[in-house]
């Protein structure tokens, strides 16, 4: 049994496997299938200052080796989370992280402040990369200036571990990552979904109510891996890698590319036990190759 513990800033994780926001609900939805306390961290659904109904149906389209979604941050707002959901999940024996989203800098700050008061939430993931909302969201994550602005403001208001989730829908993700690092982020996670679309040729109509949506699943993995490698070479803060991880080998590839932890998203829909399989698979890999700790493989890609 290798040592699977890893750190994201001050956040200590029993293993490097987390669940990606919006794909695992609040964890409870999966507790019939697995012991969710075995997971390194659960990042709950994107949370905003006020209740959001999200986008109209249809919000999802299956695509080759992946899917598009356009949920649009449906959630009941941070106060509902604090009053009704947090009490139910706070004693789960794992790290519970909240994905914080917003339309304005003030919204992000206000939500982060409220979440910051919750004892059992050791970190937030600041979502500056949601492609499915009209205002804010990805708009903050696609320029260095706006990304730095929102991260600086949240940094002042939030003292615990601050992870910033980056958008792949940019020309140079490493520059955004550096801007976010300079603004005080403890870590960056990447990638959020890639903007895409799907069309029903027979009906001559888009498959999503919003026309465009965010692409995830196995098909995005090579892009995500490339971006994690570029970003981990550009910043000193730890990187959390996600995008198309379907199994332990995929996760190990992200660790080798420089990620200190990974998130599993869309794969949860296909196999609700995938997180446990990935944790066990990483351990088996480390044992097989004689590594004592998962930290021994982080960023250990041999390029020569």
């Amino acid at each position: 049994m290798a040592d699977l513990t890893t750190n994201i800033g001050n956040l200590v994780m029993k293993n490097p496997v987390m669940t990606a926001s919006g794909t695992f609900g609040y964890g409870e939805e999966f507790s019939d299938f697995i012991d969710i306390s075995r997971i390194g961290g659960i990042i709950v659904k994107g949370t905003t200052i006020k209740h959001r109904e999200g986008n109209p149906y249809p919000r999802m389209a299956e695509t080759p080796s992946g899917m598009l979604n356009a949920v649009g941050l449906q959630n009941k707002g941070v106060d509902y989370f604090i009053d009704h959901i947090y009490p139910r999940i706070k004693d789960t024996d794992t790290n519970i992280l909240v994905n914080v989203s917003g339309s304005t800098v003030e919204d992000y700050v206000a939500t982060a402040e409220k979440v910051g008061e919750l004892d059992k939430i050791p970190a937030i993931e600041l979502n500056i990369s949601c492609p499915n909302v009209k205002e804010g969201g990805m708009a903050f994550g696609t320029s260095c200036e706006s990304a730095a602005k929102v991260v600086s403001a949240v940094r002042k208001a939030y003292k615990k571990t601050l992870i910033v989730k980056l958008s792949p829908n940019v020309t140079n993700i490493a520059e955004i990552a550096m801007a976010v690092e300079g603004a005080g982020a403890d870590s960056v996670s990447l990638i959020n979904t890639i903007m895409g679309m799907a069309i029903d040729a027979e009906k001559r109509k888009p498959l999503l109510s919003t026309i465009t949506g965010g692409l995830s699943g196995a098909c995005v993995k090579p892009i995500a891996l490339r971006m994690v490698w570029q970003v981990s070479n550009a910043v000193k803060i730890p990187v959390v890698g996600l995008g198309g991880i379907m199994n332990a080998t995929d996760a190990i590839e992200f660790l080798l590319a420089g990620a200190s932890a990974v998130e599993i998203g869309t794969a949860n829909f296909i196999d609700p036990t995938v997180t446990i399989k990935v944790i066990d698979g990483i351990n088996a890999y480390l044992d097989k190759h004689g590594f004592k700790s998962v930290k021994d493989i982080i960023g250990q890609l041999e390029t020569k």
Partner: protein
Amino acid sequence: MRKYLLDLTVSGNEKLSGNYILMKLTSEERLPDMLPGQFAEVRVDNSPSTFLRRPISIHFVDRDANELWFLIQLVGDGTRKLAELKKGDIVNVMVPLGNSFTMPSLEQQELLLVGGGVGIAPMLMLGAALRNLGYYPTFLIGARTKKDLLQLDAFENYGKVYMTTEDASCGEKGFVTNHSILTQKFDKIYTCGPTPMMKAVAAYAAKNNIDCEVSLENKMACGVGACLCCVTDTTEGHKCVCSDGPVFNIKDLKWQI
């Protein structure tokens, strides 16, 4: 209700008339408890264009044979792959998912179960459950043509069966809402089928002040209320068809009927 992730064994996979299969799955263990209206998320292997699980209604649970039945319309690569499975093959299912039809209240005696096309699937298990409670439900089954009328013998075990076909090849001609049986008085209607049909049935129920439940089948990803992809608009906002549904009372839906 506790959900399970099970590897079940194909005990039968019969091609029915039209473009449908009746798949029967079994296990060495007793199959979990399931309720009428619930569904399974079925993994489809070896189909490169099928990424997500397929939500499939529970058609029937044969407790004597320990079999779970799915009635499946072959619409794409995924369902065609399911049709190729042979006796002894393994199918991975998440089951049981979603809510269920509610049993009638004391004053609701005359029950009408309306199914259209492959939407008849959950009506068999519902009919069996109602018969088991002492009701004698009326089934009204609609299809395009005779070959799309499935499982009629099975339905006849549990109640009286009426049919409509659009081409008059069997039963009365037209849509279910044209059938003469609707001149009788019903206390509760359950329906599942194409959305236009369910809306027409809902409109009939609303007009005649009849309690009515519909089973929706929006496109889904997770099946457990985590991804919020399959929502429908209700009087309480967007709700997940997979976890708050698939069964909704029409008074809670914001259908324009």
